């Protein structure tokens, strides 16, 4: 199934209420430096394109860039790393969000039960940890709250390493936003926010991937 670029995936999900940091999509290293200045350092620069589903694995994400020189160098390298199969690519510049906890949230269409949402623990380790909970769509606020309660790793949702407890209402809102997206977007095959980073107790979609019908 084709995927949307990170920027387009985020734009779609943000329309349903998935919380994002402000990000800018640019085409050149110079524009990346300007964008970083506007957002404030440190920043993240990623190569962004519809064909780029697994950026971390390919080294297409540069984290914690603290000044213009670092941004320009990273942007130049990333553009050079794009291969002929990657199609049209751009640069996504975002503030460097910090949080000790990574979650994952998603939506998909189950062959037996239809549209579903998922909430789990773990970001890049999500599959290995496999602490995930599913619900069928549509779901209401009670269902969403029970989903959060259903995670086995509850300690991760309490105050953690100097950070406040996870805002459960905000987390439920992410799940309900994904539910609304899979319910109202007929062409949406799956959507995933990974990591869903907990920043000062609030969930923020740091990366997103939407699969669509061809």
């Amino acid at each position, binding site marked *: 199934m084709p995927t949307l670029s990170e920027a387009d995936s985020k734009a779609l999900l943000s329309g349903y209420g998935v919380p994002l940091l402000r990000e800018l999509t640019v085409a050149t290293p110079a524009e990346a430096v300007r964008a970083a200045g506007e957002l404030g350092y440190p920043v993240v620069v990623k190569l962004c394109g519809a064909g780029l589903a697994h950026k971390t694995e390919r080294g297409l994400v540069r984290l914690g860039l603290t000044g213009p020189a670092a941004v320009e160098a990273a942007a130049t390298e990333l553009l050079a790393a794009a291969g002929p199969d990657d199609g049209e690519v751009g640069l996504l510049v975002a503030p460097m969000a910090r949080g000790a906890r990574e979650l994952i949230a998603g939506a998909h269409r189950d062959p037996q039960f*239809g549209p579903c949402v998922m909430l789990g623990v773990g970001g890049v380790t999500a599959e290995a940890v496999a602490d995930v909970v599913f619900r069928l769509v549509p779901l209401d606020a*009670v269902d969403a709250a029970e989903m959060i309660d259903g995670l086995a790793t509850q300690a991760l949702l309490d105050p953690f390493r100097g950070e406040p407890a996870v805002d459960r209402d905000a987390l439920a809102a992410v799940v309900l936003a994904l539910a609304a997206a899979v319910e109202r977007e007929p062409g949406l095959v799956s959507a995933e926010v990974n990591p869903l980073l907990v920043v000062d107790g609030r969930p923020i979609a740091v990366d997103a991937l939407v699969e669509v019908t061809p």
Partner: protein
Amino acid sequence: MSTPTVTPRLDLLFEPRGVVVVGASSHPGKFGFVALHNILSQGYPGTVRATNRDGGTILGVEAARSIDDLPPGDVIDLAFVCTPAPANLEVLEACARRGIGAAFVTSAGYREAGDDGRREEERLVAAARDHGIVLAGPNGQGVVSTPAGLCAQIVAPYPPAGRIAIASQSGNFVSSFLNYARQTGVGVSRAVSAGNAAALDVIDYVEYYAADPATAVALVYVEGIADGRALFERLRAVSTVMPVVLLKGGASAGGERAAASHTGALATDDRVFDGMCAQAGVARAHTVEEAFEAAATFATQPLPAGPRVAVVTTAGGWGVVTADAITLERDLELVPLPDDLRAAVDAELPPRWSRRNPIDLAGGETRDTIPTVLDLVASHPGVDAVAYLGLGIQSNQARMMREGPFHPDGGLERIVAYHERQDGRFAEAAAEVSERTGKPVLTATELAVADPDNPGPAGVRATGRLCYASSNRAVGARAHLVRYARWRRARTPA
């Protein structure tokens, strides 16, 4: 998917005024004999007839040569069909002529037997629909209904009467659950093997049970799911009025799906099914005994108001292990003993008692304080449920004395009688306190299976409740109660 238009008429299946075994046999090894035998031997009070191509008398019943030849005055609602599949379209037509409104078709040779069988099954369903006949099966083992005294099945056993209603896609699991009912004394209202579920699937029966005054809980086994979304909606509707305990076969099948995302890889059939159950308020069990014991608990214990459990034990080790199990079970809470409760219990027990939860009586039970302590603990507003351990221990010694060489001299007869009387009283007290406080009081001892005639577990059985074979199993059952009660509360307008 099934045709719900016939569902309201399931009374014809579960409360028939008369039954005819179609294709009854004089050979004790044949299903047509066994079915008639089981109906007659378990005391069904309605009219029982039989048909056999060659006539004759089977088990004292004069067999008619066909349904059309049955005595004209008989009122018969249910045909229990044991004839070969090719004969059954004609059987349904004859049922319709005769005003027989329901047929349980036990015959094989349908969908399970390939493409020809599938077509034959479609014809059977169409015939039932055309004639307005409630069709159960085919290829099912039968139907049991204790309020009606009905044991219309080709297998044993017949269960004691109770409030669990069973519907299963596997007939053998019906037997398993009925065997547990016989073993534990926690009885069954209705049970049906859905067979190929050609016209009526498990959920159709469950909806009937939800409206059945004889039933308190549905216990179901499923494998295949025809329409997951409809199943979810219907289960959720049932859960608002009655608990459903579900065991699913093939939970490990399906595996992971190919997808670009982690979501796809994580969305195994079983995880999605698990989420569906939680969302629908269904108590999903993972083993046959867990399923039965959860259902038995729903059928015989009140729903708790919350997760706080207090343990009352006559011996330290049992209490410690039970406390561990409660602590590890995330839906339960081992409640810290409230100060006023500690003071109240303190007045009843010797100074060496544990003074904390678990409440270890430390030998104080010999002063006859168990009913009093159970009452104090269960009545406290800070306690939602009680676990009682140590029942039967005195009677276990009494048995050794009674069977030993010194009985009845030297006071043994008197002490044996005393111990056995005490354990019976404690079992009664557990049930009485539970009823009066509206809180679950669960008793657990391995004597429930090691020596079921011990007056402790036998006393629990006499109260109609389950004596759990281990405290861990009681903890698992209790967690199902807590989860379901919480699901109901969260969806009940304040």
